[in-house]
């Protein structure tokens, strides 16, 4: 007599129940299903109606997977419900912490005059565009009202190093206040590195300030994109990078790129330049539809489709580099994969729901105006103050955080209630981006079939899933990207 029961003994006589999930056609032959927390499963098209009609049998090849991934459950099983609730709570845990990133626009002055710049440039001698100590004090009052256990203060411009005195003032004052508040306090300066001095680097080292810079690619492309007197932006960047790495540590300087029409045929060269300069990651970003990008028509110089070609070519190249032993990460893919393959949400403002505007990041402009996001103040520089939440000198923390400008934007764009998004299988990976849709469609929700944001992201989600399915080695690589420390 066997010690074990027959396999048939474990087959449930009960019919399964459905758990909440969404679906979309992945291609002509398949559907993708996603559950409440973004776990996905792909099925042949003809099986969808069978599953929803409770006619899938236990011996079907998809039954066990659908049960394990919480798309279906047996009537007496409570664990799937509790596990889904736990995962959902984990996904949304970041919301309870509220605002972490506080952007201080310490000056609008800049030594560069980039045609796609997202804020109005002002010449270097206009002190009228600098943040004052009084404004900085009020901004710090605001920062420490946030309940977040982690506080990141990022200095932006213009070129923040042109008003380094106020950077120093904010850092010292914030550290002083933090002796009482005891938050996990971090500082970042977003700079072109062109104006670095030994004094600045010493201060950064003493206060553990990280530098975030800009590199658009090889010298010719970078200099075309980023004009400055002397036409030597790239040279200045490289010199600054070397000095900063030496003074602060190799990994204390990061770089971001912006894609212009001139970048489109050069994605491999751009990646190679990042590699040559010792970076291990790149963020292949589309140009944002704000500021001078619109004024100078740069934004319209390529569409979502052309950008996707650029992105896919770049991603393919990066995958090949990894396969041949060079560790290199594409950051946008990494953010999305974290949402797809883990219970965590990386908290990337553009891909958050509710939108990250104001609650994941908030901006204090040089003049004391408070904006829901960096893009919001860029719009304001163009004359559109829709997302101006208030003023540090005139409004309290409560008035700003509970302002209609913020709450309406968050509530009305919540993707679980927005037309099309609410039914979309890719919604768990996507985000509400009220500022983008307002800028382009003059409507914070926007009609998604016409939205380049939707087109771009949907295409990337499908592309990443396709890559994972077609090559086990890519799946392993993507799992590493999703589970980065």
């Amino acid at each position: 007599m066997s010690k074990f029961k027959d396999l048939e003994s474990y087959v449930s006589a009960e019919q399964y129940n459905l758990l909440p999930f969404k679906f979309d056609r992945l291609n002509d032959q398949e559907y993708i299903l996603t559950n409440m927390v973004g776990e996905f499963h792909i099925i042949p098209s003809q099986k969808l109606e069978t599953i929803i009609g409770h006619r899938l049998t236990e011996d079907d090849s998809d039954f066990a997977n659908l049960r394990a991934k919480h798309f279906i459950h047996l009537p007496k099983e409570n664990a799937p419900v509790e596990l889904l609730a736990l995962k959902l709570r984990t996904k949304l845990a970041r919301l309870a912490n509220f605002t972490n990133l506080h952007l201080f626009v310490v000056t609008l002055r800049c030594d560069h005059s980039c045609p796609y710049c997202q804020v109005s440039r002002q010449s270097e001698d206009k002190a009228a565009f600098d943040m004052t100590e009084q404004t900085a004090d009020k901004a710090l009052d605001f920062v420490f009202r946030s309940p977040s256990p982690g506080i990141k203060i990022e200095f932006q411009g213009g070129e923040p190093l042109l008003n380094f005195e106020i950077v120093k003032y904010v850092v010292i004052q914030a550290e002083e206040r933090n002796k009482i508040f005891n938050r996990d306090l971090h500082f970042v300066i977003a700079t072109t590195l062109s104006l670095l001095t030994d004094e600045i680097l010493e201060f950064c080292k003493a206060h553990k300030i990280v530098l975030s810079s800009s590199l658009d690619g090889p010298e010719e492309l970078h200099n075309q994109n980023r004009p400055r007197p002397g036409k030597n932006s790239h040279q200045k960047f490289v010199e600054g990078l070397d000095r900063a790495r030496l003074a602060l540590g190799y990994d204390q300087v990061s770089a971001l790129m912006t894609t212009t029409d001139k970048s489109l045929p050069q994605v491999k060269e751009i990646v190679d330049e990042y590699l040559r300069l010792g970076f291990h990651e790149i963020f292949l970003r589309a140009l944002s539809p704000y500021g001078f990008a619109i004024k100078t028509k740069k934004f319209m110089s390529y569409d979502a489709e052309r950008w996707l070609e650029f992105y896919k070519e770049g991603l393919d190249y990066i995958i090949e580099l990894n396969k041949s032993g060079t560790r290199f990460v594409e950051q946008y893919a990494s953010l999305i994969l974290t949402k797809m393959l883990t219970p965590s949400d990386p908290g990337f403002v553009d891909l958050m729901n509710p939108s990250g505007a104001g609650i994941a990041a908030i901006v204090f402009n040089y003049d004391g105006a408070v904006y829901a996001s960096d893009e919001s103040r860029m719009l304001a520089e163009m004359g559109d103050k829709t997302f101006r939440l208030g003023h540090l000198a005139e409004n309290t923390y409560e008035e700003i955080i509970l302002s209609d400008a913020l709450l309406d934007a968050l509530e009305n764009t919540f993707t679980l209630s927005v037309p099309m998004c609410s039914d979309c299988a890719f919604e768990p990976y996507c985000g509400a981006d009220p500022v983008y849709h307002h800028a382009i469609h003059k409507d914070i929700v926007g009609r998604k079939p016409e939205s380049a944001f939707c087109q771009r992201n949907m295409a990337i989600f499908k592309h990443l899933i396709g890559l994972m399915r077609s090559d086990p080695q890519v799946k392993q690589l993507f799992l590493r990207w999703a589970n980065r420390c």
Partner: protein
Amino acid sequence: MTEHMQITFDEKSYNVEAIQKAAYRSLNIFTVDISITDGKINCLLQPNIGTSEAGFAHSVEEFKKDVLDQHLRIKLKAETEPIRNLILGIAFSNTGLQGGE
């Protein structure tokens, strides 16, 4: 100029909400006028200015598939609503976010 197209659905088999949702998904290619007469849901599909004939024909096919998808979505959503609310209830219980605690 691309011609418009008329499609008719039987009201007994199709849900108007499903057709409206499918029409929304296609609004970048064509607009849909929906009317109901004698148990028939009539859809007049009018291509947007600049839509090619091939693009319109492809999108009409997609629209028909979308109607079926939306029909299933409505069914699935209605059936799983109680358990979705239960999951949300458990997820947000004891978070201190509820009023009156």
